[in-house]
């Protein structure tokens, strides 16, 4: 069966939007509430064990999280949107243990909380880094971070 129709069957209505910009690549939008369930169902599929990484993107009004899961036939990117003010998603570390460092990376750089992940200590940023600066968010331009660090 074609991978895209297989995924359509497995995710059903949870897949809000499916894009395939080229062969071997699928982008699927799902709701925050369905994230764990979708990852779980995909992870149970034959050949779907590998999480390549979690990408964070600041779209201006929201934070977009992209979970890149690889399958033999295609790289599937699950897309979830969270608001900037209450940036939180449930963790998937218990489903895919390899996600631990990726969740910490996104937490450091975008300030997204992963509910249920017990270790969100800084991975990349210094221990004394101000908690409200999330360097890859767009409102924190290089100049603004620079100014803020000089105040200290």
């Amino acid at each position: 069966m074609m991978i895209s129709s297989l995924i359509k069957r497995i995710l059903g209505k949870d897949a809000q939007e499916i894009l395939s910009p080229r062969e071997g690549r699928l982008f699927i939008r799902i709701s925050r509430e369905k994230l764990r369930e979708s990852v779980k169902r995909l992870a149970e599929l034959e050949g779907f064990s590998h999480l390549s990484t979690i990408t964070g993107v600041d779209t201006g009004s929201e934070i977009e999280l992209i979970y890149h899961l690889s399958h033999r036939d295609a790289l599937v990117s699950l897309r979830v949107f969270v608001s900037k003010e209450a940036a939180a998603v449930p963790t998937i570390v218990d489903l895919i243990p390899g996600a631990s460092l990726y969740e910490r990376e996104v937490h450091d750089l975008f300030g997204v909380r992963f509910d249920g992940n017990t270790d969100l200590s800084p991975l990349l940023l210094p221990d004394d880094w101000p908690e409200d600066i999330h360097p890859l968010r767009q409102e924190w331009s290089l100049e603004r971070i620079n100014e803020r660090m000089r105040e200290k």
Partner: protein
Amino acid sequence: MSTIRIPFGPQHPALEEPINFIFEVEEEKVVNVTPRLGYIHRGIEKLAENRTYLQNVYLAERICGICSFAHAACYSQAVEELLGTEVPEKARFIRTIIGEMERVQNHYLWLGLTAKEMGFETLFMYAWRDREKMLEILELISGKRVNYGVNTIGGVRCDISSEMLEEIKDKLHQLEERAKYYKSVCTKDQTILKRTVDVGILAPRDALKLCAVGPTLRASGVARDVRSDYPYAAYGEVPLRVVTYKGCDVSSRILVRIDEIPVSIGIVEYALENLPIGPIRVRVPRVVPEGEAVSLVEAPRGEDLHYLRSDGSEKPARLKVRAPTLANLPALCKMLVDVNIADIPVVIAGIDPCIACAERVIMIDVESKKRKMWSGEELRRYAIEWYQKR
């Protein structure tokens, strides 16, 4: 029994790069490991948003000094996908050739470092001497020993002429012969066997669960390789064998890499024999249309992922890089549990860590806002002034 916590790094004689591990040990055995990164975070992802697409080729190349080509190729592919550019056939072959050459030099470099961690300094010196041959070939083609600058958006910048072929083939042959010799050393020498067999175990189930990549994963018997799973450049047209070993230990990690050397040399020889004729690059527009692309490359250390998003301007809206070392760190922590303290360095070396690759975020010069290129002399003067002020 009481547990003792031992900090290891960020500066440590047995580590080439800054990373910190806290080891919890009971007597001689490691019972828990906590890694901490961030010591060479340079802000490359943020920087990429402030550079043009073409400038970013060179930035991507500088993520890592050893697998520089893989990063630049991965990034270029992502931009080409967004532009809808078809790369000329010859460029695809040259990318494959340089990519495999980079793999060979990386594996020789790694073999040397691992030998050094074992205390086998002679092997270290032999392996690095042989690696020079590959660097000479790369210098012949690109003019540089590292950071070759071969990639550009729309193709490659260096051609391989027929005058170079004889020298390249001669050196490839020597490298292949040496790989055979190292294989016999690494399967027979008692010192190596005692230091590596059944050390740093990573069961296949754990390797998959922890999302390990590259030779680390293949040494646990899992045949995954981007080159065969999602072929790019000229893979799919060249003879490729995915090497796996089932030992799940440091010894298997050595053998996977040594066996990959002749496979890579075979690919280079085949690609040179069948090198297409035609242009090596096409001109591309400066502005990239809106869209997003995920690009994958099998770097010497494993799967390298670049995610690129364009908002239709001259600069990327987002470039995300996930280099293989970060993917292998959770697996490394698993391997380190239950090893003897004395085996820690060789197990860490086993994943071929590149810490510079694993980190890329923010570095701010609080002294001056200006962006400036410093010569070595200026840097030295700055350092002296800085220390005098203290």
